């Protein structure tokens, strides 16, 4: 790898930087704004958006610094290894975040729903038992009836899209390793487009759910788990697509060499992770 890098110190340690502290303060603004926003205080949305914009613009400079250091030859194999470890652990943390929501789905469906419908609970919910199949309107009857979302056809198409995008990304990676920059860019671009189409279908599916199925975020525990799982997944697809777009830009700029391109690989790992989460979703949210 890049350990031949003559200029690189034993382990590069960046000098003082104002970005971390500024990002922290911008997050304070964002969160204060968000607290106000969810409580319908008028200035909330403006402050939140201002905070987010500040975070994004600071991150732009921060990552700019990191990329410049990398391009300046300050990184070596040790740093590269650090990035690999850190990306793996970061993805592990994301896995656990999704695990919380998958766990909630499992618990609600396999434990609390049958409980609510059992004989003892007749005291509280006399009419519920018959309705206790998954995807009901809850025992209180306060939730409007809705239809659940099956796997056909949008989710299945989306599965195909994401799986294909995993393949195109791998092709792009092979091209990068072989030193074919144009190929790399084309296949990477294809991956991003597939991601974008996925998001488009997802948005369409949400509209369909809201207007035709009457399936909403407020549709009881079914709506809650459905939208939170697919929503957070969609959010992660968006992040992944942004990462890949930055990588596309860097590919075009010629930042990567066949030996040294962990930025690309990290983004690819993330994309595959998002892919795997989707497979989980596809099975437990849409199929079962």
């Amino acid at each position, binding site marked *: 790898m890049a350990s031949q890098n003559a200029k690189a110190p034993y382990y590069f*340690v960046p000098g003082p930087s104002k970005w971390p502290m500024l990002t*922290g303060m911008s997050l304070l603004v964002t969160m204060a704004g968000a607290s106000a926003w969810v409580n319908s205080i008028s200035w909330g949305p403006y402050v939140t958006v201002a905070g987010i914009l500040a975070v994004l613009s600071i991150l732009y400079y921060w990552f700019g610094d990191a990329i410049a250091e990398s391009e300046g030859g300050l990184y070596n194999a040790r740093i590269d290894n650090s990035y690999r470890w850190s990306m793996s*652990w970061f993805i592990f943390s994301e896995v656990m975040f999704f695990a919380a929501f998958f766990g909630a789905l499992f618990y609600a469906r396999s434990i609390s729903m049958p409980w609510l419908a059992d004989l003892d609970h007749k005291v509280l919910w006399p009419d519920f038992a018959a309705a206790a199949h998954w995807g009901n309107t809850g025992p209180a009857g306060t939730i409007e009836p809705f239809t659940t979302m099956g796997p056909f056809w949008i989710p299945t198409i989306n599965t195909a899209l994401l799986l294909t995008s995993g393949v195109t990304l791998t092709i792009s990676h092979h091209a990068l390793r072989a030193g074919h920059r144009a190929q790399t860019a084309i296949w990477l671009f294809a991956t991003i487009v597939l991601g974008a189409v996925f998001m488009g279908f997802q948005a369409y599916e949400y509209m369909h759910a809201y207007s035709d199925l009457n399936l909403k975020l407020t549709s009881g525990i079914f709506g809650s788990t459905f939208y939170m799982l697919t929503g957070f997944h969609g959010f992660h697809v968006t992040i992944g697509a942004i990462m890949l777009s930055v990588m596309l830009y860097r590919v075009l700029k010629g930042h990567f060499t066949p030996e040294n391109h962990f930025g690309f690989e990290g983004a690819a790992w993330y994309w595959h992770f998002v892919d795997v989460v989707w497979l989980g979703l596809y099975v437990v949210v849409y199929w079962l």
Partner: protein
Amino acid sequence: MSSIAHDHAHDHAHDHAHDHPHGWRRWLFATNHKDIGTLYLWFSLAMLMFGGVLAMGIRAELFQPGLQLMQPEFFNQLTTMHGLIMVFGAIMPAFVGFANWMIPLQIGASDMAFARMNNFSFWLLPPAAILLAGSFLVPGGATAAGWTLYAPLSSQMGIGMDMGIFAMHIMGASSIMGSINIIVTILNMRAPGMTLMKMPMFCWTWLITAYLLIAVMPVLAGAITMTLTDRHFGTSFFNAAGGGDPVMYQHIFWFFGHPEVYIMILPAFGIVSHIVPAFARKPLFGYASMVYATSSIAILSFIVWAHHMFTTGMPVTAQLFFMYATMLISIPTGVKVFNWIATMWRGSMTFETPMLFAIGFIFVFTIGGFTGLILAVTPIDIQLQDTYYVVAHFHYVLVAGSLFTMFAGYYYWSPKWTGYMYNETRGKIHFWLSLITFNITFFPMHFLGLAGMPRRYADYPSQFADFNLLASIGAFGFGLAQVYFLFAVVIPTIRGGKKAEANPWEGAEGLEWTVPSPAPFHTFEVPPTVK
């Protein structure tokens, strides 16, 4: 890991003007692990004071029956914020501070793996603290749902609850990034020759702690995100009317919460594992079994969470499973206790303040461990759950456990940080004051709990008056002892005193003692070789 060779030629700090900044920039823009460690330690000391003042408020109100000082709403805010601030503001950041200072020094690395992200992890904490403290001032006040934020009580709170939720999101992000940094530093930056099984115990315990943190902080984030959407966006995760379940919150929370309590004790175990050998002048007994015990505690910690939920009404099989699993944890913990004592056995002991606090820790923590074991027995827990017995249990393990080892670690390593020796007499006064007043405060709480006094009560039946009075007096004493620590020990030691040698302790071993005191701004820019 006893024979350490070190190349002194590279040790003299490379004081390039551009990366040894002065003034406020040095702290705000810090990328140096020692500066960031210092920031963490000051932050957590401030939070300890803040959380401590809230505790004094609790104890003042409970001084006698009746409502003297505040309304119950405010009392609940005090209890909740005391718990949150102490756990997330005082204990956890303090250990990260120790990690920042000591891990690179102990493994011979020049800094943490990601120095800028390291600074970011720290600079997420003040915003979170501001949100938490600020929530006292908003309409409805701070969240008063207990540090566990159980649903659906958490749905009734005002904007203070949302500020609390967002603060915890931020602190969670900080912990995750901090942990990634620590793991990567340990796995990737050890000096040549330092294999994992030669690594100092503190690094081992932190490696495992960081793994726990990365595994459970996202789960907490998930739980409070669901709380947030239940509060404001009409989801029904914890609402039976829509098919959800309030108890589900508890399962998710405690899946985080139980590993969390070991997150607050494992680094403490690591610190003690350095101090006991140093002052017994004898190598740590059973190094390998210490590593295995730590790992076993971490693994078991994922399958015991529902021991906090025995009274929620689980199936009998679940109750039994969680009882057995919980009781098993006492075995690896016992191994640790026995190893420390075997380290002391036939040593040549002296009792400077670090050793006093370490021994005090072993002694008092074990009491807390035993009450934990008693609580693990389901039928007994059903009697004692949500009483002061639980409060006694966890202050024995948290205050006499985590906090005492942090004091021990401070006395042990502060010569390396400041370059000066603390005043031994004052250290000893601090120790004895703390130990005695701690027990006066929390020992009577066992009796209160056995007699049935519920926790989170602003007022209580008169029969509980005497022990509460005693506890309050003890608490004020304990608080004053910490004021003494700040003004008679910490601040003077920073200002001056007897110069500390590179290794001020006769029996201390490890790379950190091979560099001068105070440790220069840059150390190990080229790593030493460990044989």
